[in-house]
C-alpha cells in the first residue's frame, strides 16, 4: 500500500491543529510563558520590576491557599455583577424610551454622548466623595461604564427593526406588548447582545477604577497593596485574575448569544 507523501501529512497536522481550539489556546499560553521567561532571563531585571512566571505562580498558589485571593476576587465580582444589573437595566429602559420617542432622543442624546467624553478615572474620585468609599460608589462607576454601550446598542437594535415587519404586526392588529415581545425584542437582540459583550468586558475596568481610587477590598485594592509592598508578583496575579474575569464574562455573553439566538440558522452555519 502506498503511503501518503510527507507534505500531505504535514498539511493534515496543521489542519487538525487549527481545528482544535483548546490545543491552540494551550499552545499560545505556553508560548506566552516562554516569551515571558526569556524576557526575565535576557533583561535580568530584579523580581520587583519583572517577576518570573514561576514567582507569579507561587504567589498565586500562596494567596489562593490563604483565602486572600478569593476574598478580593469575590468583592470585585460582586461589584461587577451589581454594576451589570443596574447598568444594563437602566440602559435598556432608557434605550427603549429613546427609541420610541425621537423628541426624548434629541433632548438627551447630546448629554449622553457628552458624558462619554468624560474619563471615568477623572470622575471616579468625585463619585467616591459624593457616595462614600463603600460599595455604592464602586457599583455606580461600574454601572456607568456598562451603561453607554448597552444603551446605544439597544437604541440601534430597536431602530433597525425593518419597517415592513412593523407593518405586518400592525396589519395583524398586534398590541404594543405583542409587538415588543414577538418583533422588537427578537429583532433587536443580536445588536443588544453585541453591546452587552462590550459592556461586560468594560464592567471589569469600571470596578477596578473605583477600587484603585479608594477601597479596602477587591482586585484593584490588591494591586495597590502589591504596589505599596513592592510585591510585583502580587500585582501580576491580580491583573491576570482581572483578565480571566473579563474573558469569562465575555465568554458568558457569547454562550448566551448562542443560546438565545439559536433560531438564527446562519449563526449555526457560521
Amino acid at each position, binding site marked *: 500500500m502506498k503511503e501518503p507523501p510527507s507534505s500531505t501529512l504535514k498539511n493534515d497536522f496543521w489542519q487538525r491543529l487549527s481545528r482544535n481550539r483548546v490545543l491552540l489556546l494551550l499552545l499560545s499560553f505556553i508560548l506566552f510563558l516562554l516569551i515571558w521567561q526569556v524576557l526575565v532571563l535576557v533583561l535580568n*531585571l*530584579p523580581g*520587583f*520590576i519583572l517577576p518570573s512566571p514561576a514567582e507569579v505562580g507561587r504567589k498565586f498558589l500562596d*494567596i489562593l491557599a490563604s483565602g*486572600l485571593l478569593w476574598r*478580593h476576587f469575590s468583592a470585585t465580582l460582586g461589584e461587577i455583577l451589581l454594576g451589570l444589573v443596574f447598568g444594563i437595566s437602566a440602559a435598556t429602559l432608557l434605550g427603549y424610551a429613546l427609541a420610541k420617542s425621537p423628541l426624548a432622543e434629541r433632548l438627551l442624546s447630546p448629554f449622553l454622548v457628552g458624558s462619554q467624553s468624560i474619563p471615568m478615572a477623572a470622575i471616579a*474620585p468625585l463619585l*467616591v*466623595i459624593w457616595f*462614600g*468609599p463603600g460599595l455604592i460608589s464602586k457599583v455606580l462607576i461600574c454601572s456607568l461604564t456598562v451603561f453607554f454601550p448597552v444603551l446605544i446598542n439597544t437604541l440601534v437594535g430597536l431602530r433597525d427593526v425593518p419597517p415592513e415587519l412593523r407593518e405586518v404586526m400592525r396589519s395583524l392588529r398586534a398590541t404594543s406588548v405583542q409587538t415588543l415581545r414577538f418583533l422588537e425584542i427578537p429583532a433587536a437582540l443580536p445588536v443588544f447582545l453585541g453591546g452587552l459583550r462590550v459592556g461586560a468586558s468594560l464592567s471589569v475596568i469600571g470596578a477596578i477604577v473605583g477600587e484603585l*481610587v*479608594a*477601597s*479596602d477590598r477587591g482586585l484593584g*485594592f*490588591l494591586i*495597590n*497593596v*502589591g*504596589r*505599596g*509592598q*513592592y*510585591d510585583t508578583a*502580587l500585582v501580576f496575579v491580580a491583573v491576570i485574575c482581572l483578565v480571566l474575569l473579563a474573558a469569562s464574562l465575555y465568554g458568558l455573553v457569547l454562550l448566551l448569544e448562542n443560546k438565545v439566538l439559536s433560531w438564527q440558522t446562519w449563526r449555526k452555519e457560521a
Partner: protein
Amino acid sequence: MKRLIFFSLILCLALTACKPASPEPAVTKVALNLTYIPNVQFAPFYVAIEKGIFAKYGIEVSLAYGNEADLVALVGSDNQQFMIASGEQVLLSRAQGLPVISVREWYKDYPVGVASLKTSQISSPADLRGKVIGLPGLYGANYIGFEALAAHTGLTDADYELRSIGFTQVEALVTEQVDAVVVYLANEPVQLRARGYEIDLLKVADSLSLVGNCLVTNEKSLNERSDLVQGMVSAMHEALAATAADPEMAYQVSRKYVDNLAEDDPIQKQVLLESIKIWLLEPDPAEVEVKRWENMQTVLLDLGLMTRQIEAREAFSDAFTK
C-alpha cells in the same frame, strides 16, 4: 391554656420592665481615614483598635483608605469626622474654605527626602543641580518637600529637571531612568537598602522644619464633639507610645489589617522601625508647632499653591494635647 400563655407573657414583660437598666457605656462610632492603603506604617491605629485603646475612650473606629485630597473634602464637609492628613493639605484646604483642623501632629519631621544611588554622588542638596529628579507628580508631600528643599538650597526650577514617574521611584532609580527620586523616608529607602542598593539620602527635615502628617478633624466636630476629639487624640497618643515601646507586638497586630504581610518580613519590620523614628511621641510646645505651620505656609505661598495667606495658628488646635 391560652390564658396561661397570655399571663406568662404579661409577667415576662413586667419583669423585664422592672429590671434596673444596666448603664451601657455609650460608644461613638467614627470612621478614620488613613489615606493610602493598609500598611504597617499605620500600626498605631491597628494597635489602638486591637488593644482596646479606642474602646477605653468609648470610640469604635472603622478604618478607611483612599486619596488624601478626596478624603479631606469628606472631612471638611462633615461627611466623615477624622482622617490622617499632611499639614500642607490642611493649609491648602483651609485656604479654599474647608474648615479642617489638625488636632494632633503625628510626625515630628517632614517625612520626605531625596534618594540617589551612591554612584550618582549626590551627597548634598547642592549636588541636585543639573540632575533629573523623579517624583510621583507635581502635587502632594513629595513635590512640596522637594521644592522646599530646593528653594532652601538656593536652586531654581531651571537648575534641575522634575520628571513625573508615578509611585515608581524605586524602579526608576535602580533602572537609572532618573538621577534621584523623591521618597517617603520610612518606605523607599528601606526597600532600596534591603535589595542591596547603596544610596545617599537627603532629608528635607535636615534643612527646614515643616509640619508633616497629623490627625485632622473639622470645626463642627471640634466645637460640638470636643469629648470625642479629646478621646481620639488621647487614644492616638497612647497607641503611638504602645507601638514605639513594642514594635514586634505592633507588627503582629498589623498583620490582621495589612494583607499579604508575612509573619516575619524583615523589610516591612524595618519600615515600621523607620516610621517610629519620625513620630512625635510627645507633642511639642505650641510655639514650635506654630513655626512648623508657618514654614509650611511660606513654602506653599512661594510655590503659588496658596494664593492667600491664612492665620497659621487657625490650622491646628493644641487644646487636646495639653
